[in-house]
C-alpha cells in the first residue's frame, strides 16, 4: 500500500470513529446529571474527546512528509 493510500485510509477510519463517538448511542452514556471532577459529565466527555481527536488528526497528517506533487503555477505572484 502506498503511503498516500495508507494515510487516506487512516484518516477515513479516524473520521468514522469520530462520527460514532459523537453521536447516539455513545453520547447518551454521558447524558447524565452528575459532575465528574466537578464538571458536567457530557461537557467533560465532549471536550476531552474533541481534544484527543485533534491530537489524532495532527499525528496522522503530520506523521510522514510525502513528496510534494508539484503543479505549474500560471502566475505565482499576483500582479497589478
Amino acid at each position, binding site marked *: 500500500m502506498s503511503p498516500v493510500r495508507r494515510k487516506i485510509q487512516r*484518516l477515513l477510519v479516524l*473520521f468514522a470513529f469520530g462520527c460514532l463517538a*459523537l453521536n447516539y448511542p455513545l453520547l447518551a452514556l454521558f*447524558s447524565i446529571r452528575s459532575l465528574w471532577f466537578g464538571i*458536567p459529565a*457530557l461537557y467533560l466527555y465532549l471536550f476531552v474527546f474533541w481534544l484527543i481527536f485533534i491530537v489524532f488528526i495532527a499525528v496522522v497528517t503530520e506523521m510522514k512528509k510525502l513528496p510534494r506533487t508539484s503543479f505549474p503555477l500560471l*502566475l505565482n*505572484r*499576483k500582479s497589478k
Partner: protein
Amino acid sequence: MLQEWVILLVSLSYLGTLFAIAYYADWRSDRGRSVISNPYIYTLSIAVYCTAWTFYGSVGRAAETGIGFLPIYLGPTLMAALWWFLLRKMIRIAKVYRITSIADFLASRYGKSSLIGGLVTIIAVVGIMPYISLQLKAVSTSYTVMLHYPDLARIQEHKTTLWNDNAFSVAMVMAAFSILFGTRHIDATERHEGMVAAIAFESVIKLLAFSAAGIFITFIMFDGPLDLFDWVTRYPETSRLMQLEVLPGGYINWFTLIFLSMMAIMFLPRQFQVLVVENVNEEHVRKAAWLFPLYLLAINIFVLPIAFAGMLLFPEGHVPPDIFVLALPLTEGKNILALFIYLGGLSAATGMVIVATIALSTMVCNDLVMPVLLRLLTIQHVDLSRLLLFIRRCSIVFVLLLGYLYYRLIGESYTLVSMGLVSFAAAAQFSPAILFGVFWKDASRRAAICGLTAGFLVWFYTLLLPSFARSGWLTVSFLEYGPFGIELLRPYQLFGLDMFDPITHAVFWSMLINIGCLVTISLLDRQSTMDRIQASLFIDVYRHSGDTHLWKGKAMITELKGLVARFIGPRQTDRAFSSYASSHNVDFSKEIQADAELVEFAERLLSGAIGAASARVMVSSVVDGEEISPEGVMKIIDETSQVLEYSHQLEEKSIELEAATRELQEANKRLKELDRLKDEFVSTVSHELRTPLTSVRAFSEILHDNPDMIEPERKKYLDIMVKETERLTRLINEVLDLAKIESGRADWHMENIDLTEVLREAVEATSQLFREKSVAIIEMTPTFPIMVFADRDRIIQVVINLLSNAAKFSPPEKGTVIVRLYFKKREIRVEVADNGLGIHPDEQQKIFEKFKQITDLRNGKPKGTGLGLAICRRIIEYHNGKIWVESISGQGSKFIFSLPV
C-alpha cells in the same frame, strides 16, 4: 455607561485598523513578500467560520439547549480529518483551472455550464441572506446594548424608520468596507491577500475578546468553573441543561447539526473562498487540519460557563441570552472590558460579512451578470474591467441590502442560531454536486442542475417560506394547515413526516431529493463531450494538472491579448503575457499566431476575472476553427481508462507469459530427456545388434578360413550361427514392436476375451520350455470364464513373456512356476511366480526399462533381448493396467500384472 461617540469612534477606528492591515498586506504581496503565506494565517482565516453566531449566538443557544451549541463546531472538526485529501484535491483543481468561487467550481465541473453557475449563485445569494441578516442583527443589537444597557426596553423597542435603525447604518458601513477591501481592482488570480490578513487579525481579536469575557465571568464573577458548575446543579432550570434531552429534536437534531456544519465548513461560499480560493499553498492544509479544530475548541470552552452564569444572574429571563456576553460585564460596571468584547463581536460579524459579500459579488458578477451581458449585448472593444468592478460593487450593496431586508422582515422573531441554520441548510445543497463531482465521473450536468434546483426548492419551501409565515408576513394557517388547506403539504410536516424538528425535516427532504436526482439522472443521462472532459479533468486533476490542450483552432496573439486586456486591464495583461513569454521561451514580437497552449493560458486568465463559462464563450469568439481538438478530447477521456486497461492487460499478459515460459521450459526438459533416451536407445540397440552379428561373423569367418573343418565341428558352429541370427531376428522384431507401440502406431484389436482361456493357451505354448528344463508349472485359474476388454494376442504375448522368463530363471529339476488369476482391489490380477534366485530390490524397477537385464551370475551372459518386459509394460499400460514385480532375494519372484474390470 459609555458615550455614543466613544463607541462609534472605537468601532470606526477598529475598522480603520483592519483596513490598514489589509493595505499593508497588499503592499507586501506586491513586493513579493507575502505575509499570509503560512499555515497559521491560513488557519486564522478559516476561522472566519466563527461569526457573530459563535460570539453571541452560541451562548444564547447554550442557555436554551445546554450542550446543543456544540455540534456546529464538532462537525467541522470531523470534516478536518478529511481535509488532507478532500480539501487538497479541491484546492488543486481550483489552482489549476483558475477557479474563483464555488459557483465557478460547479460550473467548471459540469461542462463549463453557465446555467449551473447562475443557479449556484442564486442559491448562494438567497441562502446566505439569513446569515448576513444575523450578523446585522448581532452588530446592531450589541451596539444598542452598549449604548443603553441596562435600559432593556430601549434595546427591545422596534425600529420604525429606516434612518433610525442602526442595522441599516451597519449594513451600509459594511458595504463600504467590503467594497474598499474586495473590489479595488480586478485581479487575474482573484485572490485578496489584504482581506485574508485582515480576517486573520479579526480571528485573533474575537478569540481574545471572547476568552477575556469567559475568564472574567468564570474566574472573577465566580470562583472558577468548579464553583460555577456547583451552583448549576442546585437549580433545576440550569441542571437540566447538563443532559442532551433538552435539545429539541434530540439526538436526531444533534446528528443533523453535525452533518450541516460538516457541509457548511466546506461549502458555504465564504468558507470556499478562504479555504480554496485564497489558499496560497496546498501544503498549508496539513497544519490547518488540526490547528483550526483547536481554534474552535478554544473559542467554545467558555460558552457553557457564560451561559450558566447568565442564567444564574438573570433568572427572571428579562435579558435575552444572546447578549449575556455583553450584559454580564456591563452589570459589573466593567465598561472597558465590555467595549473590548463588543469589538470582538464586531470582528466576528465584519469578518463574515466582508468575505461573504466579496465571494458572493464575484459569483453574481462572473456567473450571473456577465454571461447574460456577454450574450445579450455585443460589447466590442470596450475596456470591461471598469464595468466588472462596477458590477461587483453593486452586487455587494445588493447582497447586504437583501440581508438587511430579511432582518427587517424576520429578524425580530428568530434567535441568532436558528437564522444561521437556515443558511447552513442552503449551503448543504451544494455538497452532493461537489462531492460527487470530485470523485464520480458520471455525475452529469443535467443531473447536477436537477439536484441543485430540487434541493433548493425544497429548502425554500420547508425553511425559508415558514420563516416569513412565523414572522407574520404570511398567514400562520400556511404552517398549520398547509397551502390552500392541503395538510399533506404543510411545510414543517411535508407529506405527513412529523417526527423531526424543522431543520432536520428540511435537511432530510432536501438532501434526499438532491442526492436522489443527482444520482438517478446521472445514471440515466448521457454526458456531452464537454461534460466528460471537465469531469475527467477534475477527477484526475493530479494527473492532468492543466497540461492538456483543448483548443485546436488558431488565434492571433494580438486579438487574444486585446480580449484579455478588455477584462483585466492592459497593464496586467502585459505583465501576464510577458511572464508567460519568458517562462515558455516565446518571443511574441516574432510570432503572429497563438498556439493551443497560449489560448488555454488566456482562457484561464480570463476565467479568473469572469468565470470559466464566460471565459470559454469569449475565447471561442477570437479562435478560428474547432474549439476542441479531437486529440485533446481523446487524450483526456481515454487516458485514464486506457492506462488502467493497459496496465490490467499488461498484468494478464505477463502472467500468461510466465505460465507459457514455465510450460516451455518443462517441454524443453522433456524433449531433452527424450532425446537422451533416444540416443541411449539407439546406442543400446546397436550394441545389442552387434553382439549376435559379431558372433555370426566370427563363426562364418572361421568356417570360411577352415574349409577342411570336421563335420561335427562345422555343425556346432552353424548351429550357433543359426541361433544368433534367430536372436537377431527376434531382437529386431521386438525393437520394431516396441517402436510401434511407443509411437502409437500399433494396431490394437480390442475385444471381450476370456482371460482364463488366454492363460491356458499361453501355458500350452510355453509347455515345451518347461519340459526341457524339467520345471513344474501349476495353473490356479477359476473354472468360469473371466471376461476382460483387451487385445487377445498382446495379452498372450505378455503372459508368454512372463512364463518364459520364469522358465529361464527357475532352477532346473527343482523349479516350480505357479500361474494364478484372482481378484484384488477391484481389478483382475495375473501372477506368475517362480522359485528362482529372486531379484534384488534395486533392480525391481529397472527390469521394466529397455535393455535392462539382470546379469546372470552363473554364466554372465544375458538370456533375453532386454526388451520383453519393456514391451509387456507398454502393453499393460495401454490396457490401463499395471505391471510390477514382488521379490525377495533367494526366494523367487512374482511378476504380477493387473487389468481393470
